[in-house]
Structures are given as structure tokens and as C-alpha cells.
């Protein structure tokens, strides 16, 4: 717990001990140990982890790899969910706005690339990505401007409708490819530089397999690792921006608005403008993820943007811990990776997946890694229970 100098009389030890067993371990411990390391050691550690992440599709580690699907492809899917979760986290976790139509932005990003890259024009991929992002950001502002004036449940309903409207519009507009969708979506431009061999595992020993290689950097159909690398790179950029925003005045304003909108206004925070900014930033990232999805897929149709996807996105953020970027990344990994890992279970896999979510909801109601403020709020609740209310004192 990050309670700082909590004095014993306002923080009954009951609240503390109630936390201990539930969490199982001191979450701050790992983070503290890493920050306590000397700077060069810390950066080496972070660097090694980053290299490991990039190398994942080449390592083909047996327990991680998905036996029934191409691991590179699964990693890309996971990465695009992570990206979406980071975007939705700005809206839902930071600004506290329940957006149930996030798939709408994902779809707009994907359709921008598909429509202007294949169906109606053949623009360069380098132009399509910024276009997709600009279009989704604008649509975020257009959706947000009238709807962010309503609060809570109404916003959820309006955004839910938005997601469906986007899908139905695509489904019923010939210019957008209608039900048959759009093929030949441009892939990221390839440069053929060198070959990287994969590892092959025999039990616990690994050998370099020279027959199984990935060409750097070719975005083809068979080998999906380069798409994963692209998405991972985008994630790092988004993470950097996310961190900057969070620590800035903008982050503070979001936090205040989420905790108490009226009180935030009384502090001089233009809450509406900041909610709109959160919506637009979220749309930006969602659109980016959709655009990457379309250029990997090569083919999109309205079926790819079902309402269920919005729910899954929200599930990823909530399961992980809304408001904590590392939490939502974990959540996205759970939501995207588990069904692929257990594809071997055939139709049972969704049942298993649903059960996993239920178990998580029961044992970690605040998410896998809840943000500091949620942990604090939980402590308050437990403290209040302990005091049984009404004993106001200083």
C-alpha cells in the first residue's frame, strides 16, 4: 500500500491486515526493488526485457507458444488488444467515462485504411495511418461534444449506440463495401534486409532452426512476426505519451474530474474540455489500433466490428484495473491471449475463458493491478466498516 505517513489512529490496523491476505503479496515490493537498483542496472534490466518482448515470436517458448495458431499472429492480436486497452484506459480509467462503443473508433481506423487504400483510392500506407488517426480523433470529438454533457449511464447508452451505428453504416453503404467487405487492404511497405532464424525446442533444450526464419522486415501473409514488431513499437510510443499526459496538468485534471466533477469545476478545471480531450485521445489510439488491424488482415468486413468486441475491450480494462496502464496491459493480454492459447479446447474454450473472467471478478474485483487511488478507496471502505460510521473525530 502506498499510504505514506499514515498515522495509526486514522488507519486502523484492521484495514491493513484485511489487505494483506487478500493481495497475497506486497505489490509495491517489486517496483521498489527495481527503483532501488543503480541506474545502469535498472536500464540493463529494462533493456533486456524489451529485447525479450521483441524476440518473443522467434523464441517460440513452448509453454507460451500457441500450438494451434501461428504464434506471431497471436502476438499481433494481443498487441493490438493492448493498444486498444491503453486507449480505452484513457477514457475509462483516467477520465472515468464509460464508453461501450469503443469498437466504433477501431472500425473507423480500419475502414479509413481499407477504403482509401483499396476500395476508393490507392493511397500510400504512410499516408493512410495518419489519415486513420485524424479521422478517428475527429469522430471522437464529434461524438463527444454533444454526449459528454450527459453523465454516467446515459453516456454508456449513447456510446453503445455509436458503435452499432458505425457497424450498420458500413454494412449498408456500398461505397464502404457493404456486407461483402473490402479486400486488398494495403500492407505496411516491406524492406528486405536480413533473415532471423527461430529457435526450436526439444524438451528443455533449444536449437537454432535455420530452416525456419523471419525476413526482416517483410510484411507478408505467412509470417506475422513483423506485424507484431510494428504493433509493439507503436505500444512503446503510446506508453511514452500516456506517461507524459498522466504526469502533466492534464492527468491531474482528469483525475479530479473523475473523482468529483463538481469539485473539479470549483478548482477551475474546465471539465467538459478535459473529458472531450480524453475522448479524442482514446479515439486516436483506438483508430491507430484499428488501422494496424486492417493492414495486417488485408480484408475487413462489418462482421469484424461486432458489439462483442466493445464489451471485450471494456472487460480487458476492467479485469486489468482501470486507471493503471500496467494493469490494463495485463487485462488485454488475458482477454486476447487465453482464448488463443486454449484453442485446443475447441468450443469449450469460450466457457473456460468466461470462467476465468468470473474467477478474476470474484478474487480481484479492482482488477489485476488496480491503480493507487482504487487501493486507497478500498482502504477507506474497510476503515469505515471498521469504525461502523458516526464516530467523527479529529
Amino acid at each position, binding site marked *: 500500500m502506498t*499510504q*505514506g*505517513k*499514515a*498515522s495509526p489512529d*486514522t*488507519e486502523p490496523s484492521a484495514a491493513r491486515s484485511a489487505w494483506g491476505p487478500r493481495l497475497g503479496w506486497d505489490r509495491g515490493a517489486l517496483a521498489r526493488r527495481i527503483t532501488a537498483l543503480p541506474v545502469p542496472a535498472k536500464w540493463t534490466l529494462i533493456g533486456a526485457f524489451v529485447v525479450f518482448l521483441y524476440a518473443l515470436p522467434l523464441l517460440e517458448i513452448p509453454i507460451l507458444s500457441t500450438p494451434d495458431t501461428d504464434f506471431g499472429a497471436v502476438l499481433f492480436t494481443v498487441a493490438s488488444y493492448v493498444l486498444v486497452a491503453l486507449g480505452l484506459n484513457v477514457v475509462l480509467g483516467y477520465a472515468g467515462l464509460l464508453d461501450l462503443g469503443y469498437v466504433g473508433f477501431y472500425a473507423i481506423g480500419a475502414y479509413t485504411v481499407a477504403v482509401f487504400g483499396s476500395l476508393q483510392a490507392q493511397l500510400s500506407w504512410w499516408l493512410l495511418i495518419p489519415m486513420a488517426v485524424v479521422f478517428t480523433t475527429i469522430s471522437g470529438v464529434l461524438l463527444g461534444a454533444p454526449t459528454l454533457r450527459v453523465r454516467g449511464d446515459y453516456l454508456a447508452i449513447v456510446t453503445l449506440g455509436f458503435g452499432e451505428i458505425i457497424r450498420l453504416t458500413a454494412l449498408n453503404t456500398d461505397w464502404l463495401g457493404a456486407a461483402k467487405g473490402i479486400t486488398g487492404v494495403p500492407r505496411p511497405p516491406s524492406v528486405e534486409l536480413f533473415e532471423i532464424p527461430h529457435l526450436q525446442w526439444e524438451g528443455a533444450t533449444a536449437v537454432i532452426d535455420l530452416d525456419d526464419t523471419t525476413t526482416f522486415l517483410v510484411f507478408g501473409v505467412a509470417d506475422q512476426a513483423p506485424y507484431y514488431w510494428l504493433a509493439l513499437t507503436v505500444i512503446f510510443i503510446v506508453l511514452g505519451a500516456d506517461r507524459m499526459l498522466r504526469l502533466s*496538468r492534464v492527468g*491531474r*485534471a482528469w*483525475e*479530479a474530474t473523475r*473523482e*468529483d466533477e*463538481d*469539485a*473539479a*469545476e*470549483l*478548482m*477551475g*478545471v*474546465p*471539465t467538459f474540455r478535459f473529458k472531450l480531450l480524453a475522448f479524442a485521445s482514446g479515439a486516436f489510439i483506438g483508430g491507430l489500433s484499428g488501422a494496424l488491424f486492417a493492414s495486417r488482415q488485408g480484408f475487413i468486413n462489418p462482421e469484424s466490428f461486432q458489439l462483442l468486441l466493445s464489451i471485450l475491450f471494456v472487460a480487458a480494462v476492467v479485469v486489468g484495473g482501470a486507471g493503471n496502464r500496467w494493469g490494463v496491459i495485463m487485462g488485454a493480454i488475458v482477454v486476447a491471449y487465453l482464448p488463443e492459447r486454449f484453442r485446443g479446447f475447441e468450443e469449450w474454450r469460450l466457457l473456460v475463458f468466461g470462467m476465468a473472467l468470473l474467477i478474476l471478478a470474484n478474487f480481484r474485483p479492482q482488477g489485476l493491478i488496480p491503480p*493507487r*487511488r*482504487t487501493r*486507497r*478507496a478500498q*482502504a*477507506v471502505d474497510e*476503515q469505515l466498516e471498521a469504525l461502523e460510521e458516526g464516530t*467523527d*473525530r*479529529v
Partner: protein
Amino acid sequence: MLLEVEGLCVNYGRIEAIRDITFSVEQGSVVTLIGANGAGKTTTLKTLSGLRKVRAGSVRFQGRDVTHMASHERVPLGISQSPEGRRIFPGMSVVENLDMGAYARADRAKTRSADLERVFGLFPRLLERRDQAAGTMSGGEQQMLAIGRALMSHPTLLLLDEPSMGLAPKLIQQIFSIIKEIREQGTTILLVEQNAAQALKIADSAYILETGEIVRTGTGRELAADDSVRAAYLGGDV
């Protein structure tokens, strides 16, 4: 006059919360609005800080018409409110709450340490709690934080909504003496209170609200001495 309110009417839907009220607050004074629950005191204060829409009438602050100005635009002008029910940011620490109070000021970084010192001088309790999550503090401490946070914006006019609500008698005394101290430091105060006895004691002028209308006006001392006021609001003895 620092604040002039004229013919103010505010509705909640079709219900009239306040009807045609007119009053003013002089620079450097403590003015109090007292009255029973539901008399419209809090609505009046929320309207002055911009959280409620005005149906009719006008609000002028330092001669400037602010009737329809948004809340967040009034803060830089010098209007600051400590909201009813100690609405602090529960997940933020004491210091983070105070920093939010200075959010609207461009020169906040320059005066931060002096401002914090001032607030901690008024409320030494907050200094002891400075890194604690605000939501884990007691009611009295949260009230202190709400007032301290409102002071961080360097207000010309401080709006206090029921600062004594739900507090123990000893603590109420303490809060009121701090309110006097804030006034002595040069901040004008508009105080809304159910604790009429205490409020009238420190008020230069007072208005009594009843079902959305001002029914009595006078200096704090006059009203505190008035028999009918004593009977209705002071429980017969002060």
C-alpha cells in the same frame, strides 16, 4: 460592493429553489446566510460559484456581470467555494488536494510553498496528514482540507457551505475561529450555515432564508439578539 446579487431565481425543473433574492457582500466582511434545511442556502451558494443555472436575476462580482459564467471561469476572478459535505478528492493525498486548489493560478509554482505554509499554519492537523489519502481522514480533517483547498486559489471571496456540518462541538468552535482568522488575513467570506448561533456571532451582516426567500436582514448582532430569530433558529438560547 464585492458581490451584488439581484432578483436571483433558480429552479430545479419546475420547482423554485430560490425566488427573487437580493443581497450584497461588502469587501472584507463576513456575511452569513442562515435558515432551515431546504431553505435554499446551498442552492444560492452553488449558483454563485456557477454550478447552478440562473433562471432570472443577476450576479455581479467586482462590478462585473458573472451571472452566466461557467464555474471554472469564476475561479481565476477570485471566487472560490468549499463545497458542502467536504467534497475533497478522496483518492488524492492532502498535498495533491491542495495543489488542485491552486490549479487555476498561472503563478502557482512560485507561491506554492508559501501557500502551503499558510494553509498548514491555519490547520496544523493537515501538515501531520500531508501524504495521507484524503478519503481516509476524519470528517473534521476533511472539512479543514476543503477550506484549505479553497484558499489555495487566493480567493477574494470565499464561499463556505456548512463548514460545521456533522462535526463535534469542540471542533465547530475551532473551525469558526479559523474562519475569523481567514477574514483577518483579508479574505471576504460568505458563509452558509445551519448553526445559526455560531454564524451570527462572527457575521457582520446576515440574511435569513425561508423556502427560497430572504425573510430577515440585519447585522449578526441584531439578529442574534432578536427574540423571534432566537425562537426560530437558535433554539431559544445562544
